């Protein structure tokens, strides 16, 4: 489970790392749609070239990504096999009893797998090269026009950043409570389903009570430091749109145009 890289951040100084989180978010958002433009060998080739150039630019070792995506490969393999066996179009390539493989099946299987792979890699690259707090800032900034419609964007972003901040704290606390309960004879690792549920309850109840207490204290501390909502607030974290960001968006548009021309 530890080798899983989805959602992880790998520190670095590559051009992709230094890009504005907004440009990366926009790019991932539209990429999800653009991917569907590809429908033949040429377009998928272009797509893969684009994906691998991004990996190269991010300076994250390919082997690291492949190792991290291992669990995903199973899903991809499954989709591939499903398409391979279920598509009954085109020339018959192979037959063994009722077992038939058609040309279109192979094509479809490969295409869908590549599409899936490309999508996963590009979205993973976003989180690999952007800290969670940057993602939060980016989302807040991109959604800020919605504030005009009374959407609580600032509050949502603050919620996200406080949750991120408290994840390690609560993990530590969970560990501590587990140890304390183990010392009192609770068995977290074995027992029947019912016993396990009981054990979990003995963990969750103190964890929740403490979290509520933390929430109250944090709220008091925030108020004492002059917090009164998003109104009239300035921001310490600065997002700067650089040439590389414009370049990323332009290359995305070019990709879309190329795919549109080459698709059949």
């Amino acid at each position: 489970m530890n080798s899983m890289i989805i959602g992880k951040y790998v520190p670095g100084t590559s051009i992709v790392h230094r890009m504005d989180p907004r440009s990366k978010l926009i790019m991932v958002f539209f990429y999800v749609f653009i991917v569907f433009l590809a429908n033949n060998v040429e377009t998928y080739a272009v797509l893969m070239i684009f994906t691998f150039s991004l990996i190269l630019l991010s300076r994250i070792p390919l082997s690291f990504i492949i190792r991290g995506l291992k669990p995903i490969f199973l899903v991809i393999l499954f989709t591939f096999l499903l398409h391979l066996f279920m598509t009954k179009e085109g020339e018959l390539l192979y037959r063994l009893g009722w077992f038939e493989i058609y040309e279109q099946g192979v094509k479809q299987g490969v295409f869908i797998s590549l599409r899936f792979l490309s999508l996963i890699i590009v979205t993973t690259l976003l989180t690999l090269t952007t800290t969670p707090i940057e993602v939060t800032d980016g989302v807040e900034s991109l959604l800020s026009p919605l504030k005009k419609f009374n959407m609580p964007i600032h509050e949502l972003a603050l919620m996200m950043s406080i949750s991120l901040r408290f994840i390690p704290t609560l993990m530590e606390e969970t560990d501590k409570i587990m140890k304390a309960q183990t010392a009192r004879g609770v068995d977290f690792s074995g027992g029947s389903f019912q016993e396990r549920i009981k054990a979990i309850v003995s963990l969750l109840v103190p964890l929740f009570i403490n979290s509520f207490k933390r929430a109250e204290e944090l709220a008091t501390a925030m108020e004492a430091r002059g917090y009164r909502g998003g109104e009239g607030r300035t921001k310490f974290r600065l997002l700067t749109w650089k040439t590389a960001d414009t370049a990323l968006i332009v290359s995305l548009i070019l990709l879309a145009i190329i795919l549109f021309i080459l698709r059949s």
Partner: protein
Amino acid sequence: MREIAVSVENVSFKYPNEANYAVKNVSFYVQEGEWLAIVGHNGSGKSTIAKLLNGLLRPESGVIKIFSTELNETTIWEIRKRVGMVFQNPDNQFVGTTVQDDVAFGLENNGVPRDEMVERVDEAIRLVKMEEFLEQEPHHLSGGQKQRVAIAGIIALQPDIIILDEATSMLDPKGRNEVLETVRDLKKKQKITVISITHDLEEVVKADRVIVMNKGEVLTQGTPEEIFLLGEQLEKIGLDLPFTVKLSNELKGAGFPLTTDHLTAEGLVEELWTLYSKM
């Protein structure tokens, strides 16, 4: 003549759904640049006073003035800028995801322009000697370091008064010294008034003046020396005496002709060895 930084006049406060007053008709003042300690056992109302001082709680009756500005609905935000508070739990007052974000939080709230904010954050972090940890996340810091960051967050707002609401009670001795050293240092450099609400007798010893609270009322006030002379009376309301005070009392009881009470180990040692040479 020094200005009066905080004046509390006949303030009473009761938590909703509770029969007894948490703070009953309390009056005191704090001078500019003074270090005032408020002591008392649990439930004596000392933490309630802290929360009353920057408007986290509103008194039922009485007047609180910060540098002659009365605390009310309209002045509350202004006063929160001038009265900084450090709370007990180091984790539960760390809002930002990194040290510098947390220090900036108060400035963001007050709409300080970004250029100025960056300068003030840097300066505040330097003052508490945390500059190596700028980008650190809170779970990599010790309790003492987190409290120093909390102090930096308050210093960045350039307050006149810092309230330490049992700010050192969850720290180990090293962390406690770090934090107190930082506050003492700041007080020297910036003429800040400090109100520390505490159990810790070392903290009390170093204060200029002490207020003893019991059951929501001011029991007595005076210099630390005067307060510890009360001995038994303090123990009766559940407060402890510093080890040196206890020892010197015992020695006096055993017939050694010690002259005064001793708040510090140095003072006691000094008298003990000179006593020996006199005998």
